[in-house]
C-alpha cells in the first residue's frame, strides 16, 4: 500500500481527544491511533462503529449452555446414571437443580474464553506476532495519531496538526 501518512504525537489523552475531534471536523482521515492505555470516549470521537463483541458473547453463552445441558444429560442421565445423595437420576428435569451450577459455570467459561479468542482474532493478534506500533513511546506515555494524507497538501496538514497541539509530527512515506 503506497500511501503517505503523517504521524502526530501527543503527550496528553485529553489533548488527543480534542485533536481527534478537530481532525475529523476538518475532514481529514484518521488511519489509526496508538495509545498506551484505553482512552475513554476515543472510539466515539473517532466515529468507530459500536463493538459487536456483545453479540458474539450472547452467542457463546448459548453455545456454553447447550454444551453444558448436553454434557450433563449424557454423563449423568443417559450413559451412567449415578445415585448421589439419593437424588433422582431418571430424567434430566428431576435432577436439574444439581446441574444448574455446572450449566452456569460452563456458560461463563465459554463466554469468557471464546470472547478473548474472538477479540484476539479481530485485533489480528497471535503468538510471536511482531508489534505493529510505529513508535515505542506509545507504550509509555505518548499518543500517536496516524493521519492519511491522501490528496491533501502535506504542508497544510502539518500546520493544522501542529495547531491541534501535536508535540511531534513526522511524515511517513510507505513505498
Amino acid at each position: 500500500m503506497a500511501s503517505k501518512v503523517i504521524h502526530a504525537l501527543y503527550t496528553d489523552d485529553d489533548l488527543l481527544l480534542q485533536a481527534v475531534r478537530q481532525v475529523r471536523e476538518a475532514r481529514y482521515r484518521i488511519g489509526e491511533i496508538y495509545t498506551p492505555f484505553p482512552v475513554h470516549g476515543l472510539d466515539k470521537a473517532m466515529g468507530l462503529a459500536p463493538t459487536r463483541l456483545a453479540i458474539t458473547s450472547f452467542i457463546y453463552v448459548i453455545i456454553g449452555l447447550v454444551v453444558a445441558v448436553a454434557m450433563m444429560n449424557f454423563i449423568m442421565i443417559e450413559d451412567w446414571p449415578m445415585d448421589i445423595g439419593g437424588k433422582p437420576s431418571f430424567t434430566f428435569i428431576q435432577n436439574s437443580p444439581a446441574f444448574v451450577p455446572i450449566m452456569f459455570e460452563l456458560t461463563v467459561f465459554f463466554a469468557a474464553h471464546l470472547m478473548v479468542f474472538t477479540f484476539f482474532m479481530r485485533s489480528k493478534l497471535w503468538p510471536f506476532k511482531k508489534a505493529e506500533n510505529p513508535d515505542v513511546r506509545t507504550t509509555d506515555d505518548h499518543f500517536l495519531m496516524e493521519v492519511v494524507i491522501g490528496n491533501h497538501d502535506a504542508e497544510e496538514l502539518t500546520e493544522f496538526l501542529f495547531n491541534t497541539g501535536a508535540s511531534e509530527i513526522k511524515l511517513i512515506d510507505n513505498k
Partner: protein
Amino acid sequence: MYTLSSKLKIFSIVLMVVGLLGLVYGFIAAPSTIEEVREFVASHDEPHEAMEMPLPGQTEDELEDDAEGFDFVPSEHQVITERMDEESHTMAEDAELVHLEHVLHQLQNKPWAAVYVAAFFFFMIALGTLAFYAVQYAAQAGWSPVLFRVMEGITAYLLPGSIIIFIFLALSGLHLNHLFVWMDPEVVEHDEIIRNKSGYLNVPFFLIRAAIYIAGWNIFRYFMRRNSLKQDEATDIRWYKKNFKLSAGFLVFFIVTESMMSWDWIMSLDPHWFSTLFGWYVFSSMFVTAVTVIAMVTIYLKSRDYLPFVNNSHIHDLAKFMFGLSIFWAYLWFSQFMLIWYANIPEEVTYYVARIEDYQLVFFGMVVLNLIFPLLLLMNSDFKRVNYFVVMTGIIILLGHYLDIYVMIMPATVGESWFIGIPELSALAFFGGLFIFVVFNSLSKVPLLAKGNPFIKESEHYHY
C-alpha cells in the same frame, strides 16, 4: 417544583377506597363457623383429593408424583397439620371435622395474610430505597444526586408503612389473628422446638425488637432528609458530610436490623424452619423492587417534564441495577433452594415441599418473572435507555416480587387454601394507593433538584 396533579391524587384515593371496601368485604366474607367452611368446600370441589388416595399396598412415598419432577419426602405439611390440630383431636374424633376446622383457620387467616403481604411489600420498597439512597451517599456516587429527591420522596412512605406493620404485629400479638403460630401459648406448650426458641420468640420481645428497628430506620430517614434539605441553602458542605457519616452508620444498622426483621416478621411464620441466608434473600427482593420503583417514578416525573436534568444515562444506570439485582435475587433464591433440596433434611425441606406441592405455579412462575424476563428484556444495552422498556420490565419485576413475598408468607398462614382473590387484590390496591399518595405528596413539597449536593454538577453532566 412538582405539584401533585389532581388526577393522580384522585386515582390514589380511589385505589385506597376501593381497596378498603374490598378488605372490609374480605374480612366479613371470611367464614366464622365450620358450617360455613363445609359449604365453601362443597362449592369448591377439590378433584385432586381423589387422586391422592393411596392404593392398597402403596406407601405414601410411592405416591409422590414422579411426573412432577420433584421427589421429596412424603408430604411434610401433614405433620404440621397434625401438630396444629392436636388440641382439636380430643374434641373431634371425626377426621373430616378436623380437616374442616383446619381449613376454617386458614380461611380466617386469609384476609389478614393478604393485608400483611401487601403492607410488607410496599413497606419494603420504602426501606430498600432508603438503603439505596444511603449506599449512594456512603459511596460518594457522582451519577445519582439528581435522583436524590425522588429517592427521598419514596422513603416518605417508610413512616406510615412501618407504623402500619407495627400495628399489625401488635394486633397479632393480641391474638386477633393467628398468622404467627408461635404466639399461640397452646401450640407452644405442645411443641418442644418452639418452646426451646421462646426466649427469642415471645410477643413482648418481638414487639420491642420491631419497635427498635422501626424507630431506628425512621430516625435515620428523618435526619438524612433534613440534612439533604439544609444542604440546598448551605454555603459549605457541612450537611453533606453529616449525611455521609449518617449513611455509613445507617448501613451498618440496616444490614443487622433488616436481617433480624426478616427472621422476625417472615421466617418466624414457619417457626420450625430456618435458613441462614434468609435475611439476604429478603434484602435482595427489597433492593431490586426499590430500584425498580425509583426508575419508574423517575420516568413518570420525567415524562411530565419535571426532571429536565435527568438524562437517559441515569435511566440506563438504574436499569443496569434492575438487571444485575434481578440476577442477584435469583442467585440467592437458588442458593437457598438447592442446598435444602440437595441435603433433603426433613425439617428443612418441609418449607419447599409446601411450596412446590401447593404453590407450584406461583413458586416457579415468580422465578420466571423475576429472573428470565428481566434477564432477556434488559440484556441489550440500548433497551436499558428506552423508557417504556424499563417501565414494562419494572411492572413485571414488581409483580414477581409481590408473588415472592406472597409465597414467603402464604404457605405458613393459609396453606393450601390460597387464592389470589378479592382480599389480596384489595390489599394491594389499598396499600398501592396509599404509597402513591404519600410518595407523590412528599415529592411535591420540595424542589426536585438537590442543588446543594457537591456532586450535583457531575451528576447533571453524567454521561455513559
